[in-house]
């Protein structure tokens, strides 16, 4: 069963939250992650944390999305697809980097196949640190986007 909704996050909602008005469609992009963060994102949308009650919903196409959840260090092969995916999203769009790898390449820093952190490839609006971050932290970042 869904847990009681925790109080709203202390940090103010991001500026784009006003325009989104309590609704955020989310597209996940795995730029080279070990899938740890994906499991936590899956949990954030599962019955216990239920991110959908704050107006966030996973969608299948970047054209439908307002938020890109990017995980993992950006590998060489995923750098261009990541750029194109973010470019395909209509404005206003937000990029949320999930996990230590997305922020500073984490364990994979300096590996031969790694292009860099997510911030080196596209502009990042919100960051959620952790290896992997707890579902509560992902949900609280999404609540700053939907403002609910």
């Amino acid at each position: 069963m869904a847990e009681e909704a925790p109080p709203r996050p202390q940090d103010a909602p991001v500026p784009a939250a006003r325009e989104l008005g309590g609704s955020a469609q989310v597209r996940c992009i795995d730029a080279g992650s070990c899938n740890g963060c994906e499991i936590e994102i899956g949990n954030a949308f599962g019955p216990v944390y239920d991110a959908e009650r704050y107006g966030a919903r996973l969608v299948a196409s970047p054209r439908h999305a307002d938020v890109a959840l990017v995980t993992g260090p950006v590998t060489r092969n995923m750098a261009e697809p990541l750029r194109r995916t973010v470019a395909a999203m209509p404005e206003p769009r937000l990029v949320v980097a999930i996990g230590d790898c997305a922020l500073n390449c984490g364990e994979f820093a300096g590996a031969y196949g790694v292009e860099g952190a997510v911030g080196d490839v596209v502009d990042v609006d919100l960051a959620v640190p952790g290896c992997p971050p707890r579902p509560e932290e992902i949900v609280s970042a999404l609540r700053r986007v939907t403002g609910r």
Partner: protein
Amino acid sequence: MNVIGYTAVVAQVALVVAGAPLLTGLMRQVRAKLEGRAGAGLIQPWRDVRKLLRKQPITPTGTGPAFRAAPALLVATAAVVAALIPLVSTQTPVRRHADLIVVVALLALGTVALALAGLDSGTAFGGMGSSREMTVAGLVEPTMLLAVFALSIPAGTTNLPAIVSGAIHDPTRLASPAGLLATAALAVAVLAEAGRIPVDNPATHLELTMIHEAMVLEYAGPDLALVELGSQMRLTVLLGLLTSLFAPWGIATSATWTALAIALVLFALKVAALGAVLAAAEVFWAKVRLFRVPELLAGSFLLALLAVTASYFLSGTGGGL
């Protein structure tokens, strides 16, 4: 009569446009509760539409008129169908034009518009979705026509208001074998036409299993808002058609304000109840494999054919055919 009749038409369209996102919200809420989640609330689909209308419109390179016209055409056909079907009143100024074949053709026009848009987007998934949608539509349209023909034999006409008012005055028509078979056939056809489980899963993220969603992957912003509103309106009018034909009680057959008010409230309640039952059932169903969809639809076509046969032989008079 005329003022009340025009009010009824406006009320039908307004209720379908305003209520369609709420119906989707209700169905998602029922699903969330049954899955142990809290849910986003009834008005979340309206929040989504409001946000999409504010977003940047995008026309992907290489797309043409079919892609641009489809969202408006989808909403327009659904709105015309909402005006034609006797959802709250059979005494409307458009009742002579509310023919069964016109209604099915209008719904097909919306389907074809979106299928052409899927092809126009030029992506692999768009074309695949269009091909699948046409496969399903080709099996669904005859079933819908046949199922309602079974009801039109006792009424002696394919005019929907005449069928509905006939059923209100003579409820035994619905309890007949033909009526029950036609209900089952039309219910399956409605599920397929509206793109619900077990034929299509509206919440899927897997492109390979998509039918309807695959065609609209390239839409963004205001166009996507129209496509979503159009699909929700189609679901609402299809469920409304089902309730009008098989649970017509409460629909205004006389042109009085009280009858109209009662009919409006009852229509909202009936469609909401049907939607909630459908959402609850979907939690327990799985989507069938794409290659088994024709078997399901052929089964429902057979039921519709049996309904027509039963209606013809058992109605005694043979009707007007």
